[in-house]
C-alpha cells in the first residue's frame, strides 16, 4: 500500500493538474519550429519520385543559381566525408543522401540550403536528377523469389532476407498441434501504420565555429542516445555536442530514430557555420520517417475439447522496407513479439519471424508500443476469438478457462518471459460487469433474428514494458537503464532531471509527484527538467512505456538516498540517534515524542547552513536505475459495435477499458493516456494504412489519405481500473501509455467479426473501412 499524502503535498494517487499546461494553453510552448536563431537559414530535401531507380546524374547548377541559395548537398558530397550512410538503431545502415540508387519513393536525394524556407523549396524543385527506373519489389511475399531484384547491393549477402528469428519449442509445439482436439488458425496482416504525431520531425543545428560547439534542437524522444550517435557518426567530441529536445508535439515512437534530415542539417551547419533549420512537412513525415507494424502473421492455436490451450505456433513475415531502421533492443530482431502467448497459460509455444527488404520507406519502429507487442497482442486476441468460434464457446468463457491464474505469478511463459504480476480474471470480470455482457448477448440474439448486425469484441491483453534489465537490453550497446538527479535547494524546493523526455505524457507533473511522495516536498515545489543533454543525467529516453518503470524508479530511489541523508541531519538537529526517528512524508519525528520533529524544509536548510560534522554539505542524489525485470500491465477491453447494412459503416456504440497498471501516480493523466491510445487504436482498426501500389507509389502519404479520427468519429471511452502492483518496481507501478493502443485493435476487430460471425466470417484485416464490410455483406447475400 502506498501511503497517501495530503493534497497539498500531492504525492502518488492525486489527480493534480498538470504544471506544463500553463504555458501550452497560452501558446507559449517552445517546439522545435519555434526556435529562431540570428542568422538562421533553412534546409529542404529533394526526394525521389521513384521507388527503385539508379541515379545517373545530379545537376545542382540550376538550383545554385537561385538568389538566396547557399548550398546544395548531394550523396556524393557526403560520401567524401564518409557520411553518405549512417547506422540505423538496429544492425543495419541507411543512406543519408542517396548514392548510386534510390530504394523507396520519397527517399532523400539532396539537401538544399537557402536564406528563406520558400527559396529552399523553390530551389529543390530545380535540382535535376536523372533516374533510370529499376524493377520494383513491393510484395514481401515475393522478396525471396529467385527473380526478385536484389535491393541492397551494398550488402555482402546477395538476398533480400534480413533475419530469421525463432524462439520456443518447435517439436513439442508441432506435436501438440497435431494431436489437438480443436484447432484455430488465423492469417492476420497488421498493416503498415504511422505514429504521425501532430508535430512532425525537425531540427535546428547551430555550429559555433569559435567554440567548436554544436547545439542541436531536435524532436527527440532519446536526446542522450542521439548525442552519442552524432558523436560516433560525425566524429565530433561528445562534450562539444549538446542536444536540446524542447517541447515535443507528440512522439509515439516516431521521434526515436535518427533521420537523414537531421544529419544533413548538422552537416550544413558545420559547413556554413550558421544555424540551419529543417522541418518536415506532414507528407514527408508520413512518407519517409519510421513506419510501424507491417507484419504478415499466422497463428495456430491448439486446444483440448474443453478449450484448454495446448500450444501456439506463430509464423510471421516482417516487411522492413529498404533499410532495417527498427529502433529496438539489439538482441531482439522482432522486438518483444514473443509476448504473443498473451494472458494465457499453455504448456508450449513456438514463434518465428523472417524480416525482408522491399522498396518501401524504412522503419519497423515501436509506435506507441513496447517493440512489436501490439502485433503480438492483436494476433493472440484474434486467435482466441477464432478458437472460441471453432469450439462454439463464448469468447469470454474461453479466456477465463485459459488465463494464467492469479496465484501462479511470477509466471514463466513458454517463450521465455517472467511475468511479474497479474490478475486477469478480475480485470475481465469488472469489464464484463461494467458493460453488461450477458444482456448484450441477449440483445444480439434478438437483433440477429430481426436481421440487424451488432457485435461484441473482447480483448484481454498483456503487455510487456519498461525495457529493460541490462543483462538483456541495450540499444547500440548502451544498456537500457534510466536516470534521475535530484537537488534540494536550501529553501526546501527542488529540481530534478531525468534521462527520459516527455512528449505530452506530463512528466513535469508526474515525476514531481514521485518526489513529493518520497520526500514530502509539495509537487508544486519540484521543478522537472528533461531533454537538455548538457544538464540532464544520461538515459535512453521515453518510448516503450519505459519512463515510469525506469526513470520513475530512479526518481524514487534518488529521493530515498536523499531521505537517508536527511535522516542523518535530522538526528543531528534533534540530538537523537537515527534509529529514534520515524518518517512520514515531509518530516522526521522522534519516536514517542511526535512534537519533536524536523520538516524536510528545515532539514534542507540545515544541509547548507548547519550540517553535522563529517557530513558533506548539500542535499542531492543521482540514481541510474537498472530494472530487475520488465513490468507486465494488462487489462480487458470490450467493444460493442452496430453495423449499418446499407453502407457497411461500423459504429462503436460503447467501449469499456479496464486497465491494470499497478500503482498509479496521477489517475487523471492515466485516463488521458487511455483515451488517447484508444483513439489511435480506433484509427488503426478502421481508417489507417500506408499501402503502396504495384510500382511503389506510397498511398496514404498525407492527411487526406491517412486518416486521423476527429471528435465526431471518436466515441466516449469508459475507463476503469484494477490494481495489481508490480512486485519489483520501487513503488509498484507498471507502464501504461501504450496499453490502449496495444490492447484495443483486437477488441474493435473482434467486435466487427462477431457481428458477422453467423455469416461465416472469421477474420477481416484492418483497416475495416465501410467498403470492406459492405463487400462482405454483398458476398454473403445480406445486401443486394
Amino acid at each position, binding site marked *: 500500500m502506498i501511503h497517501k499524502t495530503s493534497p497539498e503535498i500531492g504525492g502518488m494517487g492525486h489527480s493534480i493538474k498538470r504544471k506544463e499546461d500553463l504555458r501550452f494553453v497560452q501558446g507559449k510552448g517552445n517546439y522545435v519550429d519555434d526556435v*529562431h536563431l540570428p542568422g538562421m537559414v533553412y534546409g529542404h530535401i529533394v526526394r525521389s519520385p521513384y521507388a527503385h531507380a539508379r541515379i545517373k546524374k545530379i545537376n545542382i547548377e540550376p538550383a545554385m543559381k537561385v538568389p538566396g541559395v547557399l548550398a546544395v548537398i548531394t550523396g556524393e558530397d557526403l560520401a567524401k566525408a564518409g557520411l553518405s550512410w549512417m547506422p540505423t538503431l538496429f544492425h543495419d545502415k541507411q543512406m543519408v543522401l542517396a548514392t548510386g540508387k534510390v530504394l523507396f519513393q520519397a527517399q532523400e536525394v539532396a539537401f538544399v540550403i537557402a536564406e528563406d524556407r520558400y527559396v529552399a523549396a523553390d530551389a529543390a524543385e530545380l535540382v535535376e536528377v536523372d533516374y533510370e527506373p529499376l524493377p520494383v519489389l513491393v510484395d514481401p511475399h515475393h522478396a525471396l523469389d529467385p527473380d526478385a531484384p536484389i535491393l541492397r547491393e551494398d550488402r555482402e549477402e546477395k538476398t533480400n532476407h534480413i533475419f530469421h528469428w525463432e524462439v520456443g519449442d518447435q517439436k513439442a509445439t508441432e506435436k501438440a498441434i497435431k494431436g489437438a482436439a480443436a484447432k484455430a488458425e488465423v492469417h492476420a496482416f497488421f498493416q503498415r501504420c504511422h505514429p504521425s504525431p501532430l508535430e512532425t520531425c525537425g531540427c535546428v543545428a547551430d555550429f559555433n565555429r569559435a567554440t567548436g560547439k554544436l547545439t542541436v534542437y531536435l524532436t527527440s524522444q532519446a536526446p542522450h542516445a542521439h548525442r552519442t550517435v552524432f558523436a560516433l557518426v560525425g566524429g565530433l567530441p561528445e562534450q562539444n555536442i549538446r542536444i536540446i529536445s524542447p517541447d515535443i508535439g507528440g512522439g509515439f515512437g516516431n521521434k526515436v530514430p535518427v533521420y537523414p534530415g537531421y544529419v544533413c542539417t548538422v552537416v550544413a551547419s558545420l559547413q556554413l557555420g550558421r544555424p540551419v533549420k529543417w522541418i518536415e512537412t506532414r*507528407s514527408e513525415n508520413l512518407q519517409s520517417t519510421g513506419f510501424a507494424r507491417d507484419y504478415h502473421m499466422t497463428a495456430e492455436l491448439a486446444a483440448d475439447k474443453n478449450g484448454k490451450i495446448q500450444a501456439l505456433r506463430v509464423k510471421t513475415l516482417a516487411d522492413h522496407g529498404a533499410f532495417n531502421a527498427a529502433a529496438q533492443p539489439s538482441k531482439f530482431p522482432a522486438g518483444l513479439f514473443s509476448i504473443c502467448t498473451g494472458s494465457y497459460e499453455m504448456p508450449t509455444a513456438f514463434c518465428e519471424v523472417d524480416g525482408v527488404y522491399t522498396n518501401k520507406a524504412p522503419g519497423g519502429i515501436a509506435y506507441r508500443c513496447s517493440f512489436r507487442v501490439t502485433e503480438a497482442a492483436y494476433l493472440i486476441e484474434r486467435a482466441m476469438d477464432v478458437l472460441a468460434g471453432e469450439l462454439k464457446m463464448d469468447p469470454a468463457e474461453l479466456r477465463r478457462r485459459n488465463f494464467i491464474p492469479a496465484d501462479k505469478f511470477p509466471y514463466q511463459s513458454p517463450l521465455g518471459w517472467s511475468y511479474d504480476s497479474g490478475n486477469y480474471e478480475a480485470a475481465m470480470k469488472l469489464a464484463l460487469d461494467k458493460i453488461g455482457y450477458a444482456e448484450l448477448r441477449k440483445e444480439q440474439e434478438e437483433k440477429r433474428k430481426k436481421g440487424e448486425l451488432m457485435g461484441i469484441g473482447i480483448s484481454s491483453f498483456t503487455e510487456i514494458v519498461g525495457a529493460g534489465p541490462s543483462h538483456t537490453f541495450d540499444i547500440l550497446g548502451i544498456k537500457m537503464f534510466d536516470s534521475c538527479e535530484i537537488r534540494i535547494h536550501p529553501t526546501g524546493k527542488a529540481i530534478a532531471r531525468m534521462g527520459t523526455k516527455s512528449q505530452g505524457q506530463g512528466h513535469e507533473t508526474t515525476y514531481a509527484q514521485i518526489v513529493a511522495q518520497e520526500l514530502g516536498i509539495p509537487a508544486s515545489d519540484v521543478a522537472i527538467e528533461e531533454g537538455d543533454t548538457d544538464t540532464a543525467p544520461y538515459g535512453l529516453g521515453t518510448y516503450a512505456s519505459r519512463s515510469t518503470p525506469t526513470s520513475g524508479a530512479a526518481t524514487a530511489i534518488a529521493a530515498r538516498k536523499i531521505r537517508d541523508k536527511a535522516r542523518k541531519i535530522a538526528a543531528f538537529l534533534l540530538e537523537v540517534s537515527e534509529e529514534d526517528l520515524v518518517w512520514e512524508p515531509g518530516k522526521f519525528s522522534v519516536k514517542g515524542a511526535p512534537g519533536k520533529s524536523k520538516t524536510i524544509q528545515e532539514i534542507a536548510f540545515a544541509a547548507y547552513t548547519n550540517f553535522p560534522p563529517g557530513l558533506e554539505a548539500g542535499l542531492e542524489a543521482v540514481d541510474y536505475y537498472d530494472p530487475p525485470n520488465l513490468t507486465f500491465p494488462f487489462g480487458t477491453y470490450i467493444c460493442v459495435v452496430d453495423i449499418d447494412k446499407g453502407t457497411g459503416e461500423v459504429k462503436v456504440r460503447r467501449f469499456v477499458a479496464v486497465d491494470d497498471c499497478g500503482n498509479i501516480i496521477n489517475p487523471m493523466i492515466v485516463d488521458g493516456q487511455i483515451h488517447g491510445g484508444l483513439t489511435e487504436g480506433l484509427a488503426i482498426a478502421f481508417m489507417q494504412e500506408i499501402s503502396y501500389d504495384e510500382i511503389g507509389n506510397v498511398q496514404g502519404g*498525407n492527411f487526406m489519405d491517412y486518416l486521423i479520427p476527429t471528435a465526431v468519429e471518436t466515441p466516449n471511452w469508459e475507463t476503469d481500473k484494477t490494481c495489481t502492483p508490480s512486485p519489483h518496481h520501487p513503488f509498484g507501478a507498471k507502464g501504461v501509455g501504450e496499453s490502449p493502443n496495444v490492447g484495443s485493435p483486437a477488441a474493435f476487430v473482434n467486435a466487427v467479426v462477431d457481428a458477422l460471425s453467423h455469416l461465416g466470417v472469421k477474420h477481416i484485416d484492418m483497416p475495416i473501412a465501410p467498403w470492406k464490410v459492405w463487400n462482405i455483406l454483398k458476398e454473403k447475400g445480406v445486401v443486394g
Partner: protein
Amino acid sequence: MAAKQKVRVKINGQEREAEVEPRLLLVHFIREVLSLTGTHIGCDTSHCGACTVMLDGKTVKSCTMFAVQADGCEILTIEGLIQDGKLHPLQEGFKEEHGLQCGYCTPGMILSSLALLKRNPNPSEDEIRHGISGNLCRCTGYQNIVKAVQYAAAKMAQGGQR
C-alpha cells in the same frame, strides 16, 4: 519573385505591418514575421487545424490563406486570449479538465472552441464534437476537450465573459 507588398493587420489588439512576398502564407506571417509562435503547423493539406486563428471574428486555417489576403483584417491568435494576466475560461477549462497532452493542437483547438461558443453559448456534446471537428488532436481522444469546452461554457455563462 514577385514584388513585396505591404500587409497591415491588427493582431491581438496591436497594429502591425510588414512588407511580404505575395505568396507568403498567413501562418508563416504570423509565426515568422510577427513572431507569434503559438499558432502551429501540423499538415500540408488543410486538415489538422493546428494553424487555426480568428480573422474578423471567424476561424480560418491560416495555412490556407496568404498574408496579403489578411490585409486590413483583425486577427486573434492564442496569445491574445489572456487578459490582464487572467486566463480565458477556455484556457482555464483545458487546464482544469486535462484537455491537452502535448499541447500542439491546443491553440487551434481553443480558437475553434471560442468560435463555437460565440455562435452557440450552450452547446450539447454533439455540437461541441462537430464544432471542433476541423481540428485534429493526436493525444487526447477529444473526451477531455469536450469537457474543457463545457467547463468554459458554464463559466462564461456565469460570468457573462467575453
